[in-house]
């Protein structure tokens, strides 16, 4: 490796590669430890009706008759050459399935993080403006409640309320992508993005509040104040900008989670995203689908973390110097 191996960026990539291999092995092993296989998943108890010859044919069809190591290496070799495998249920390649589902998940994640930030940052600023006072306590309690309510419950309550009052439920229409029908797509994304946004706003709010309180007591803020900087300029340029560093970290993490597919919310609102792809793969025990999709999610997660590092450098000049 030499000098290259010590370069921070190269090292990060090396770590990322090790992480991804680890994820792939873990997924592979876990899938096979869990009881049942593709045959029992597809045939249920009727699998008992299959003759030995039929079973052999099926095992060969699903490729589960090979030794584990060659199954793993075969799959990994495929992935490295861009072949993520084929779903035995839909007869589509995992690559093309992912090409369809990933944009939906990314769109949902972007909308949700926007809602989360729009609720969390002003909420945190509001709470921090008078610590310990009514507005602080109200935002703290509200965020605690938002954090505690399970997203599936919130989703069910909000949607059935809307159905029963105004008869509006766009998610019952067939799903339309943003390019097919932007109007319907945004309607279909509204409820899931709102539910997800509400569930990620609390940690953003808490982080913002804590960061602002810390930054406010820093020397440079006092200096700025002494120099006569006040009001909006002080709040935004000197306090908020510096307080944003931990908020960026937190949001990056949340965004990474969202890209992993908000499984429950995608399931409830019938959004054909990457989380549902994993879930369906799991239900049908489609090894290739689960392994490859989880790997895609892991890659996204690693990428978002790298991007967050870059964002740091933009927000905080000190990181750039180091």
């Amino acid at each position, binding site marked *: 490796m030499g000098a290259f191996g010590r370069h921070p960026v190269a090292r990060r990539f090396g770590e990322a590669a090790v992480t991804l291999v680890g994820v792939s092995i873990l997924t592979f092993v876990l899938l096979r430890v869990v009881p049942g296989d593709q045959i029992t998943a597809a045939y249920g108890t009727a699998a008992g009706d299959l003759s030995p010859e039929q079973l052999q*044919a099926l095992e060969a069809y699903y490729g589960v008759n090979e030794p584990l190591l060659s199954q793993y290496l075969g799959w990994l070799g495929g992935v490295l050459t861009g072949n993520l495998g084929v779903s035995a249920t839909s007869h589509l390649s995992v690559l093309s399935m992912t090409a369809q589902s990933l944009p939906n998940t990314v769109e949902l994640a972007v909308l949700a993080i926007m809602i989360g930030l729009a609720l969390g940052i002003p909420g945190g600023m509001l709470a921090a403006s008078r610590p310990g006072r009514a507005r602080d306590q109200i935002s703290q309690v509200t965020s605690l409640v938002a954090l505690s309510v399970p997203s599936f419950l919130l989703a069910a309550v909000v949607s059935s309320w809307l159905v029963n009052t105004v*008869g509006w439920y766009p998610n019952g229409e067939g799903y339309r992508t943003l390019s097919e029908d932007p109007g319907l797509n945004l309607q279909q994304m509204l409820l899931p993005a709102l539910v997800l946004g509400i569930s990620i706003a609390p940690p953003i709010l808490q982080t913002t509040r804590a960061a602002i309180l810390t930054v406010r007591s820093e020397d440079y803020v006092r200096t700025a104040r002494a120099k006569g900087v006040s009001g909006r300029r002080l709040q935004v340029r000197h306090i908020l900008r510096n307080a944003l560093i931990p908020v960026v970290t937190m949001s990056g993490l949340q965004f990474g989670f969202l890209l992993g597919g908000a499984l429950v919310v995608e399931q409830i609102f*019938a959004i054909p995203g990457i989380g549902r792809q994993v879930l369906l793969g799991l239900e049908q025990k489609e090894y290739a689908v689960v392994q490859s999709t989880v790997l895609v999610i892991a890659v996204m997660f690693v990428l978002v973390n790298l991007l967050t590092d870059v964002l740091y450098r933009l927000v905080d000049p000190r990181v750039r110097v180091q």
Partner: protein
Amino acid sequence: MSTQRRHGHRTRATLATALAGGLLATGLAGCGSDGEQTGDANGTLVFGISADPAQMVPWTATSTQSIQVLSQIYSPLLNTDAEGVPEAGLAELPEISEDGKTYTFTLREGVTFGDGSDLDSADVKHTYEKIIDPASSASSASYFANVAGIEAPDPRTVVVTLKQPDASFVSGLTGVNTAIVPSDVDAKSLETKPVGSGPYQFKSRTPNESITLTRNADYYAGEPGAATVEFRVIPDEQSMVSSLKTGSVHMAIFDNPVTAKTATSGQTESMTVDSLSYHVLQLRATSPTLKDPNARLAIQCAISRQDVIDSAALGAGKPSGPITSPEFRSDPEAQPCPEQDLDKAKDYLAKAGKPDGFTLNLMTSQGLYSTAVDEAQNIQAQLGKVGIKVNVEALDSNAYVERWLAADFDAAIAMNGGSSDPNTMYSRYFTKAGSFNKVAGYSSPELDKLFADGIATTDTAARKPIYEEISQHLVDQAAWVWLFTPEMYVVANKSVEGLEERADASIATLWKASVS
């Protein structure tokens, strides 16, 4: 990942896979008459399903959704009437030779596949031979276990020769799993592009979202009502309810009475239908705890079936004996303890040499169908009254299926598919050579003889007493404890017209309905 961080939530499949067996046995009903067409002839009917169909080739179809979709695209050789009894379809009911070994079918004239080719005897022969071929891994292969040969002497005649008489043979030809595929289309291509002779033709599929079918104007039984049928995948039950209420989905089937009730509104109507499948407490007589028939009878007597229905299934079911086939249905009252009888249960326990009861390990499933865990808990409470301590083990559906197939349990809560033929229902379980005899855990020389007699007798009236005797033997020995047949709920928007009321939840006659 976000799933672990947020609250785990498992949605239940609207219909259990196990039910598939029940639907297998029912095919298209009501041929020869035109469908009622009062609505918009160009309407689209949206049918909500909880999961993407897992299989698209008829003979491999086991999931409920696959059967629902494929029953619109394909036709089996024979149909069943609204009661589930076999009747003419693509062919007339067969002529059976004196010795009961030769079945001669005469095909209807002028039937075509979606690709325009004629449906003739070569297609029937091709389909059945494909099913028998182990390489196809057909779940319906067992229906053809007795088949010695299939001949197609002329385009309209199919002759099937059996190795020995098999009275249940005809009922096997009524389901989607034996539906006829064209002989000149490669089976592999049917996986992505089905070609059948059913009321609708495959148009397009978006995996995990929808499958769209268009009307087959040449359908042999009449012109289908809706121009287009879309099967839309909506995995979440609540979401399905919302979609029905707002009218974006026209029709869906639920097994949960509470959900069905919330889905019923000013816009929708709910129809309750029976099912051929049955819920049962499977006891394995070969396990040490249940070896003594008295121990098993004690369990039968300690259980109130109505109580199980009321508490676990919220009243949605009817107490049942072993056989649910419409023509052979068991009398649910004909068993040693038709009602709960705790004194009698204690007597049986004493006879079994366990007056203070015993410990029973009971396996149940999560995710296969909605009532399984509640049934186990209710039975746990009921058996506790006579000192039988029940350890309930609730397993994930895959783990449950694996243990069930391996016969690795003492007792299990199960929902098994029914059939219009009683031999199809039980010879696999309760004959020594049956493929599931190890799972069922009970057999006897008397039963083996009765099953052999039942299948060698082709006359329905003569078969009835034989199956009555089988049914009686099973409950007298408490081979299992049969609980109830469930009710299903077909919820449809009021704009759907001409929907045929059936005795089961099959949607084989969906083609008669239209949307206004």
